[in-house]
């Protein structure tokens, strides 16, 4: 964008343009977007931006992480609990490549994020200069949009565009790669937040006839089932969902990322879908005559074998991203658009009914699952501690109203199954990518985003070691995250698969762990360890009451398994209870 120097040519905008360099323009643009917290790590190619940050410390807080992957996951945690765009700043080359995992994670989980990477000066581009990598090339398939800024004058417009793209429509990560000379270059700064991109249509007006057809199918249905995805949370449509469900009496099951959109104790909440989800919603998917998918994308962890999925049902698919329609499951009635708009349109027209008998069938399934799985997990008769009982103690200690962050593995599935929620945006977990190491930095970001709410992280002994250095960031920020380390001495989820599908050949899943208590000491993070059931209540109490970050390590049963389970390739109705 070519900016003219004479302010009188732009009479519509009385704001006087300010002369500044590109780095200051980066900071000013972020402030115009309402950003007050960013995560990052400095280095040569981004130093001018850090220098500018120095002058804005009061307005724009920068959290120095210990590894760029941590910066991205922290920004994700922040974005997921606040609904705002997470922001991180990294240097060129290794700084940017370290951020790649987090960017891919944000892409697949639709997390709004802007990553600003420094780049070598533009005359050096393409010459294999020191710390040069093709960041735009590398991140192209894992970003919603990316762009290389080579001139200072482009900065305000590029940042406005980045934020607009990141937060609208189906959200996602945007990478802006800013060359060092663009950071140094001078410009006349002017910020226009509103951008219009003719090639980008974030959402679509809802088609009236698709609503009418959806309403017709819902009114006819005897056994409807609503599938709640993250789209409900991203669209801020939790109330609209509740109103729809309560008018129709339709039972609702959730995907991993749809968790907390509907309170856990809502009478129509029938539990989690998919591989380690609840028995009822999985089995009943194939008995249902109408699937109403709301802001979800039929991930293979949800559907199991797609050929044998929802075999008796018609499908209504409410989704903002047109490319998701018919991608995995054919939609008899696609309703493209924001669910915050489409849900009330359906609710208004649909007949008031209930499906009490049908909901009772789910409750009958719950009884079976309770007896076979939930009771033994939460109230074990055996000596060893289960992950489930720990999760239950923690959720109850917070009156079922904390933010739950998880890493990846058995502890993630157990936490998602047994943690309870009253409020939305209370879950931060790596769904689509399943990134070990996500938890610790994401918990930090979530806590900084929601300082008033308790944040509990459930993390395994494997995963914590992938980003353990962020204990340093947690110490430095004093973010009072509560870390529950469920130590089973194994890469538990992989070991479970080895037990079930590879004849117990435990190849490289046994961990010789460090002394996590000593590590915490080294990082000045308060901690304790629990070996026996008798110690658990007190330890949880101590953790909850501690004012500041805390790590509670619980030695759980080494070879515990997560059940129920839909084995790969099986139908959801073939879910195994043992």
């Amino acid at each position, binding site marked *: 964008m070519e900016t003219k120097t004479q302010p009188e040519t732009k009479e519509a905008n009385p704001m006087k343009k300010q002369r500044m360099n590109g780095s200051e323009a980066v900071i000013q643009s972020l402030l115009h977007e309402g950003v007050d917290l960013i995560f990052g790590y400095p280095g040569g190619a981004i130093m001018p931006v850090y220098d500018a940050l120095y002058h804005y410390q009061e307005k724009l807080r920068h959290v120095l992480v210990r590894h760029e992957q941590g910066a991205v996951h922290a920004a994700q945690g922040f974005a997921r609990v606040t609904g705002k765009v997470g922001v991180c700043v990294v240097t060129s080359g290794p700084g940017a490549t370290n951020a790649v995992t987090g960017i891919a994670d944000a892409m697949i989980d639709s997390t709004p994020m802007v990553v600003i990477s420094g780049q070598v000066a533009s005359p050096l581009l393409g010459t294999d200069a020191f710390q040069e990598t093709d960041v*735009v*090339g590398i991140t*192209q*398939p894992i970003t*919603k*949009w990316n762009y290389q800024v080579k001139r200072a004058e482009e900065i305000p417009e590029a940042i406005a565009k980045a934020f*607009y*793209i990141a937060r*609208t429509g189906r959200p996602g990560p945007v990478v802006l790669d800013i060359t060092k000379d663009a950071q140094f270059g001078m410009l006349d700064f002017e910020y226009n937040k*509103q951008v*219009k*991109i*003719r*090639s*980008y*249509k*974030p*959402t679509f*007006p809802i088609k009236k006839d698709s609503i009418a057809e959806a309403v017709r199918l819902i009114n006819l249905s005897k056994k409807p089932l609503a599938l709640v995805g993250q789209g409900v949370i991203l669209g801020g449509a939790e109330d609209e969902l509740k109103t729809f469900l309560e008018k129709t009496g339709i039972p609702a099951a959730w995907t991993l990322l749809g968790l907390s959109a509907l309170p856990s104790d809502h009478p129509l909440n029938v539990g989690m879908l998919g591989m380690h989800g609840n028995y009822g919603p999985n089995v009943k998917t194939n008995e249902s005559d109408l699937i109403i998918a709301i802001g979800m994308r039929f991930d293979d962890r949800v559907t199991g074998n797609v050929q044998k999925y929802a075999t008796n049902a018609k499908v209504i698919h409410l989704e903002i*991203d*047109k*490319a*998701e*329609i*018919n*991608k995995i499951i054919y939609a008899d009635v696609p309703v493209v658009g924001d669910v915050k708009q489409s849900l009330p349109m359906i609710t208004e027209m649909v007949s008031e009914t209930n499906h009490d008998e049908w909901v009772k069938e789910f409750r009958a399934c719950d009884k079976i699952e309770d007896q076979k799985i939930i009771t033994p997990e939460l109230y074990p008769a055996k000596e060893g501690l289960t992950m489930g009982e720990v999760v239950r103690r923690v959720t109850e200690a917070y009156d079922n109203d904390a933010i739950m962050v998880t890493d990846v593995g058995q502890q993630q599935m157990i936490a998602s199954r047994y943690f309870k929620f009253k409020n939305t945006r209370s879950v931060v977990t790596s769904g689509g990518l399943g990134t070990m190491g996500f938890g610790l930095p994401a918990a930090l970001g979530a806590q900084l985003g929601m300082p008033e709410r308790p944040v509990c992280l459930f993390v395994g002994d494997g995963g914590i070691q992938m980003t353990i250095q962020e204990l340093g960031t947690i110490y430095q920020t004093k973010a009072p995250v509560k870390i529950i380390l469920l130590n089973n001495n194994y890469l538990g989820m992989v070991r479970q698969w080895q037990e079930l599908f590879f004849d117990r050949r435990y190849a490289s899943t046994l961990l010789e762990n460090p002394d996590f208590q000593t590590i915490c000491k080294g990082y000045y993070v308060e901690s304790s360890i629990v070996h026996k059931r008798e110690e658990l209540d007190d330890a949880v109490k101590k953790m909850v009451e501690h004012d500041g970050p805390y790590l509670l390590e619980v030695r759980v049963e080494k070879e515990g398994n997560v059940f129920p389970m839909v084995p790969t390739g099986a139908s959801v109705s073939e879910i195994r209870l043992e």
Partner: protein
Amino acid sequence: MKQEFTLSIYSENHVGLLNQITTIFTRRHINIESLTTSESAIPGVHKFTIVVFTSRDQINKLLGQIERRIDVLKAFVFTAEEVIHQEIALYKVKTEALLNSNEIEKLVRQYGARILEVTSEYTVIEKTGHKDETQELFDKLNRFGVSQFVRSGRIAVTKLNQELLSNYLVKLENDLSILD
């Protein structure tokens, strides 16, 4: 059932778009039979013409993912009958072979090809047409030895009298709903 499709993809003229579009095909292991890029009749708007062999179901999924890219304006898919399309082929033969008999000259006439350049050593023949036609000429010429052969990607226009995109762009300009 697999069949041939021609895609017309309109985009902003940005660096890196070609890569953005082709990875959508390569991720799904769909071979691009031919690809041409050029300016369209609308200033500033670029056009990709891509030919692939795949199923209707698959092509619709691809279309969704292509249009999802921020800088892509719109993508259209056609079967061969729905568009007017052409390819251009160049054939290089020895001039000696041309002079030895009148066979090559006869082929050139018969196929509506033309001779682009004649030197004492070689002759370059050009033919535009559909792939099967340019291929047929190749097979026939090759009996006399074709030392070099090249065929361009397909280019195509629709049977409508405007760029399909024009209406869409006008609609976009008037549609304020895309602003949040």
